[in-house]
């Protein structure tokens, strides 16, 4: 396969799944003719028709709510919410219905649906276009949350998410949409999957474990370059699925390195890094050489573009965090 951006990988995965399974339908604002504001759904309506790739009215609860009904009645809807900051009107549908329909019906009715949405800072956008509030959703029983950081992961995880028997929130880092090109190892038919709930070791190392997900994985890799100049070699774990997390991968690495820094783009308080920090404390305290450090954004509204650089972790802040656990 030719090299693709993360965004193109998503588009190709959608094409592949729609071609493979006629029960897959796409719905959202501007996903049809326009192909999505980022072009993630480009070409789908032309190929699969307006009945399966639907431009919906501008209503997030309506999009997710009708997708719930469709999923109950045998389809596999993939919804696009234009930006993560606009998902909140649909929270009632996600939390009170999609994620608990299986429980409420004792397995009779299920919601195999995917909600895709771009998230995070880095595209110099307006207010409400830079959120990274995955924790609201991680806190929801019955919902899976996935965040890819590479093109091949985006493809393999999205295919798995569409085939998953339960609802999946699929967060796409806008910052990485077109940041690089990478080969996606699909076979002749287009098949390539990555199991949900499995982390990926991006880089092996001995000195410290850097745990992250989404756009922050790239920042960790840049921090590792700074650290390498000082002969410090962190191990980088990309969680890929942030709910449920790959506990084994985290603990295995931390037991090896004895130190952990968790890096998240989300606001600090009650982010996933807090959960991971508690997990390590409960299950690997005796292996630790230093307390776990969290490098996070702040408990403030994401600033407008000119001041955006204050907000999220950058390579230097991550470098500093690693130094801190090493010097403890």
């Amino acid at each position, binding site marked *: 396969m030719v090299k693709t951006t993360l965004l193109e990988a998503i588009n190709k995965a959608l094409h592949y799944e729609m071609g493979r399974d006629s029960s897959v*339908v796409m719905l959202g604002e501007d996903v049809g003719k326009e192909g999505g504001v980022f072009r993630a759904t480009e070409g789908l309506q032309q190929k699969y028709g307006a*009945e*399966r790739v*639907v431009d*919906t*009215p501008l*209503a997030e*609860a*309506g999009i997710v*709510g*009708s*997708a*719930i*009904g*469709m*999923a*109950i*009645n*045998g*389809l596999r*809807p993939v919804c696009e919410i234009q930006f993560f900051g606009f998902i909140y*009107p649909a929270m*009632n*549908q996600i939390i*009170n*219905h999609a994620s608990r*329909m*299986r*429980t*409420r*019906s*004792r*397995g*009779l*009715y*299920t919601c195999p649906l995917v909600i895709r949405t771009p998230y995070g800072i880095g595209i110099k956008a307006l207010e409400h276009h830079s959120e990274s509030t995955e924790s609201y959703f991680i806190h929801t*029983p*019955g919902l*899976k949350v996935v965040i890819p950081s590479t093109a091949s992961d985006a493809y393999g995880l999205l295919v798995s998410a569409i085939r998953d*028997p*339960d609802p999946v929130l699929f967060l796409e880092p806008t910052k990485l949409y077109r940041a690089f090109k990478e080969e996606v190892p699909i076979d002749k038919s287009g098949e390539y999957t990555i199991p949900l*709930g499995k982390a990926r070791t991006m880089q092996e190392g001995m000195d410290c474990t850097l745990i992250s997900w989404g756009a922050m994985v790239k920042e960790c890799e840049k921090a590792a370059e700074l650290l390498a100049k000082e002969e410090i070699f962190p191990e980088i774990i990309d969680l890929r699925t942030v709910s*449920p*997390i790959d*506990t*084994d991968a985290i603990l295995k690495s931390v037991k090896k390195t004895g130190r952990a820094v968790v890096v998240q783009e989300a606001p600090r308080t009650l982010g996933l890094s807090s959960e991971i920090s508690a997990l390590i404390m409960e299950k690997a305290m005796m292996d630790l050489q230093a307390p776990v450090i969290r490098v996070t954004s702040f408990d403030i509204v994401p600033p407008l573009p000119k001041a955006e650089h204050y907000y999220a972790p950058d390579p230097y802040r991550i470098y500093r965090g690693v130094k801190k656990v090493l010097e403890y």
Partner: protein
Amino acid sequence: MFFTMLYDKFDSLKEQQLQIMDKDGKIIRKDLMPKLSNDDLKKIYYYMVLGRAADQKAMNLQRQGRMGTFAPVYGQEAQVASAYALQQGDWVVPAFREHALTLVRGMPLKNFYLYYMGNEIGSVVPEDTRILPVSVPVGSHPIHAVGIAWASKIKKEKTVAITYLGDGATSEGEFHEAMNFAGVMKAPVIFYCQNNHWAISVPRSIQTASKTIAQKAVAYGFPGIQIDGNDIFAVYAATKEAVDRARNGGGPYFIEAVTYRFGPHTTADDPTKYRDEKEVEYWKQRCPVMRLRKYMANLGIWDDKQEKKLLEKVDKEVEKAVEESEKTPIATVDNVFDYTFAQLTPQLAEQKTYLKKVQDEKKARTQK
């Protein structure tokens, strides 16, 4: 002008209401009488009486602490006739005051008791009923009926979906999104609004400034009709028209069934605090069960002997359902964990193991 559809004859914008049988059980619009055989009428009556008996029993059980809070259907039993207009394979998306009509669709009475006794096992619904679980967040479920119906349309199936909601639900944003999606997508869905005048303590006049609730459908581009919701003939005729029209590609349809709840919103409130007894009395004169009984008596197909026999039969059914429910073991630890996902996640497996261990330890401590 010649109108063939009921919604053309009864203009919701002009506050015209479809009524076929008056409060005394007399047919006032013979021309609009739907085709229902004497057997059909007896069946509808049976489910209405069963619904009422089940409800009264549940109220007693709740007062005795044997059942939790629930929303009585008392006074709104004509809903049964709407479910009677459906076909096998059609979907029902209820709110939480529809247990009388779910019986028509094959829901075992036991499920009602189990669920409101707080037993998860009550949520195990027979597959072919196609009834969605009770939905408590008001107004959030009609959109599911829209999605279900829309999917039927995409799959070229001839099934329709009907959703039930109250007058209060029409104030929720998600209700309006559901109406809008239904209209735009021309989904084969029926909105059946039971306007029972009260959303807990808040009267219908505070929910909306519209003259009728039915007229809201006009703005969304599909028909809406207001009907006497305590007249089973009006209920059946309107629902039948809606269902047939949707099944034949006509799209959505809104029915405002004007009715009244005789009891409280749920067992947790006291309606004497917020509404006038005179109003309750007015509506009791329009009781849907009594009206159908009068009609059948006038027709000569129902007498006191049959009534007595039916009440005995219904009581037995209720007693049996309650007995079975109370005998049903409570949900196990596995049961409360295992339906979170298709497959237990490692985290949930760990939490479940922990809870089982704790339960065992507690048991061992009390046995000492």
